[in-house]
């Protein structure tokens, strides 16, 4: 090794070479080659991604990577999106910001997902990082417009402010006016999550006016249709636009003004927003439809014929997200239209408008998805809510679309069998994992036995994320997944009869994964304690809002369980309803 080192490149050359290596995986591989490469690499790593903010401590990151300019952090488990994680669970970003404020004066980009961000954190960001450029708060909460005002006022070179799907406390609409007149650097602004009163429109107009590089703008619902034209005329260079409210009384001059404004945006490729749609205004989009590659109508309460008309104008559509309405019309025919006109479609998402209705929505069935699978050979990503499915349909879909990388099917009623044969849907999902060799993400639903997990364990070698609900018969199901899925990173399970056996027999597997979530299953408190005791590199956390788990017998199942690997040890910000199974912690007590 020493001899080879004598012939290796000087540090500066290596550093230059490494600067071309952007992917985390490759960077990690580089760092393992030898000690000196590890050293060189760690000093020149500029971007760090941390998929679980509790897997490592801020201090550890700073110690290893002293020159970071961009950080991405994720907090709460995915099931927090569906209210399964109680409020106050954790995911606070403040400590990270505080430590990075001292260590990374040149930090320019912070991207957070499912984290709790306070005004204090935002104010700290605003005053600590002189070169701050990008703030993305995806599905975050805990802050108000006061925090945003601090960011706007202090960040002189802000390029990106994206608040998508976050929960913001509205205190004042004037935070936008805090952007100084000298700020002309905005490239991307997403304020779609803000409520009615949280934006001063005139401040927004002036901001758009003075930012010639603005490419992406998502307005909030307070911005009415008649105002869209004003904005678009100030930003004809937009590539990605989210309308606010898309409803108004039909007036010819408003319509023609809007249509003209849209057609003046020669770069526009992606549209979203469309709350409260009035169909009469959809033709205003026709001039840009031929250029659109992405259309998100998933909040648009428009009906199938209007949707079909619109989509038929968009032959280059690659990404379509839309909401299916309860109607008299057959929605499957709408999807058939789509399949015949949008041959480049790669991603399809269909949301239910009536998920809690008693009557099954007969308008949308598995036929729509089959039609799309047949007509759109490039289909890679599917999210589909429906009320019935068959194994035959799933097999057909699998055979038509072997390139699927993400397949999420939600049959609305739990444990619904194949509607033709009344059998479980094991064979159908089995076909999906068997034919789609690059499948990375899968969500299951319907009536499923342990067999489906046998298929998944056998064929799902590239599967990274699996979501399971109301499925399986026994621990064997879980065992198949944990022992077979080599690439598994995230596993989330709810309401399945999986207990201690498979979990304990596959304990080592858990160290190779980011996290495991199990709620309303059959894992006993005793098993959780054992796991916590035997696996020091795992944080085993039991969540129970009713009473402490050790006030009941050890064989009693825990309500919710979240296990994740960590080099930082147990966390210290757990609320009273979260219990850590870490032995060391218990000894302290």
């Amino acid at each position, binding site marked *: 090794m020493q001899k080879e080192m004598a012939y290796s490149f000087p540090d500066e050359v290596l550093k230059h070479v490494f600067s071309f290596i952007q992917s985390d995986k490759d960077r990690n591989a580089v760092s393992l080659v030898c000690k000196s490469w590890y050293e060189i690499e760690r000093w020149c790593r500029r971007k760090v991604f941390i998929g679980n903010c509790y897997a490592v401590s801020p201090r550890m990151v700073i110690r290893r990577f002293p020159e970071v300019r961009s950080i991405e952090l994720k907090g709460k488990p995915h099931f927090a999106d569906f209210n399964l994680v109680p409020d106050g669970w954790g995911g606070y970003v403040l400590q990270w910001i505080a430590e990075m404020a001292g260590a990374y004066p040149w930090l320019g980009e912070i991207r957070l997902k499912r984290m709790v961000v306070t005004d204090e954190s935002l104010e700290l960001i605003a005053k600590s990082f002189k070169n701050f450029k990008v703030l993305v708060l995806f599905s975050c909460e805990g802050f108000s417009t006061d925090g945003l005002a601090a960011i706007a006022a202090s960040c002189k070179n802000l390029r990106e402010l994206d608040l998508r799907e976050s929960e913001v406390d509205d205190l004042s609409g004037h935070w936008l006016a805090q952007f100084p007149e000298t700020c002309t650097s905005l490239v991307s602004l997403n304020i779609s999550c803000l409520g009615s009163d949280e934006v001063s429109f005139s401040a927004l107009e002036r901001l758009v006016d003075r930012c010639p590089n603005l490419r992406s703008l998502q307005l909030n619902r307070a911005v009415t249709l008649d105002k869209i034209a004003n904005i678009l005329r100030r930003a004809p260079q937009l590539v990605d636009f989210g309308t606010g409210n898309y409803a108004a009384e039909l007036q010819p001059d408003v319509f023609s003004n809007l249509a003209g404004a849209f057609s003046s945006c020669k770069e526009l490729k992606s549209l979203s927003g469309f709350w409260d749609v009035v169909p009469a205004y959809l033709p205003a989009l026709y001039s840009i439809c031929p250029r659109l590659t992405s259309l998100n109508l998933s909040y648009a309460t428009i009906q199938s014929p209007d949707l079909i008309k619109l989509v038929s104008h968009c032959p280059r559509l690659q990404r379509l997200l839309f909401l299916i*309405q309860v109607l008299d019309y057959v929605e499957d025919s709408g999807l058939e239209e789509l399949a015949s006109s949008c041959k480049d479609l790669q991603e399809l998402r269909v949301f239910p408008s009536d998920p809690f209705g008693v009557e099954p929505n007969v308008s949308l069935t598995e036929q729509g998805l089959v039609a799309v699978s047949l007509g759109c050979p490039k289909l890679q990503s599917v999210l589909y809510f429906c009320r019935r499915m068959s194994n035959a349909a799933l097999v057909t879909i699998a055979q038509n679309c072997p390139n699927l990388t993400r397949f999420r099917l939600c049959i609305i009623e739990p444990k619904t069998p194949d509607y033709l044969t009344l059998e479980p849907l094991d064979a159908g999902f089995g076909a999906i994992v068997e034919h789609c060799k690059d499948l990375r993400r899968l969500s299951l639903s319907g009536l499923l036995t342990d067999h489906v997990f046998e298929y998944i364990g056998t064929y799902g070698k590239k599967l990274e994320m699996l979501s399971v609900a109301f499925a399986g018969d026994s621990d064997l199901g879980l065992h198949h997944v944990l022992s077979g899925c080599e690439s598994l990173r995230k596993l989330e399970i709810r309401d399945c009869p999986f207990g201690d056996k498979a979990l304990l027999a596959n304990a080592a597997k858990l160290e190779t994964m980011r996290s495991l979530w199990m709620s309303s299953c059959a894992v006993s408190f005793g098993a959780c304690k054992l796991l916590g005791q035997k696996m020091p590199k795992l944080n085993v956390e039991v969540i129970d809002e009713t009473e402490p788990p050790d006030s009941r017998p050890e064989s009693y199942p825990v309500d919710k369980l979240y296990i994740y690997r960590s080099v930082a040890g147990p966390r210290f910000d757990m*609320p009273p309803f979260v219990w*850590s199974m870490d032995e060391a912690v218990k000894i302290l007590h």
Partner: protein
Amino acid sequence: MQGGGGGSESGSMSTVSREDNMVMSSEDSSCSDESELELGLGLSLGGFKMHQVSRGGHYARILTAKDFPSVISASSSPSSSSSSSSSSSSSSSSLSRANVTAGTKRTADSVAAANSSSQVVGWPPIRAYRMNSMVNQAKNQATEGFNSTMENHKSETSTVEKGTTGISSYQNSGNAKLRKSLFVKVNMDGIPIGRKVDMNAHESYEKLAKTLEDMFLKTTPNVNPAGSRALKLGMMNKLTRSSKLLDGSSDFVLTYEDKEGDWMLVGDVPWKVFLSSVKRLRIMRTSEATGLAPRLHERNCQRQRSKHI
């Protein structure tokens, strides 16, 4: 730090970096097999080891939940406790065993859940952001903004109306099993961490008060070693007696902020009306609530008067 270091030092460093790499990269490096802890764990549960079972079934039988009737599948939904016909008998026997166990709140809940049409939280998996959007759309369409459109465009009126019926089911569900959650924030004076409670999971003021009492006022023994000790100790010091939030006999009262932004005492309007107007809740110290609801003060006076008699 060029070169140098013995073999063992670099060995440990590469272990550390692999671990660090694993938590700091978006994708895994290859999994290591060296830490296969199988039987050490299995032993404490009776020397069990997982085997693959062939269809012929002549391998060792996999023990399943039905072999362990003491493991209660206690969940909020009835479907998982009777997930397959073979396990239903054991789960009902385990439920009856659980009935015998006294004093555990969860037992009562699981029996109740199995019997009544329960409500499944978080299903179907639609993000809270999307659900809130749809609810707000239904409200908007039902109220102002659309009336003029409806008058002027009759054909569109009928289609719009049809549209809203679908959306409005986001608010009031006909299906008892799957119903929409309505989470509102709850803060209690003196406790920095707020909580969220699902209004639609409660049918009455009494049920809501009970949940909130359990959430905020329960004197839980301090078994959670980690977590904010100071916070929990503070909570325990404050709340040493059982409290009732609705009848004015405790140190705290339950108040809510309505659609107009006013803070009101909870309990004065019919439950359904309350549901449609509540924006958030606050468990307020009684001493601070005097300006809020004259009725509360009256009630206390009445109680004191009746005591004197």
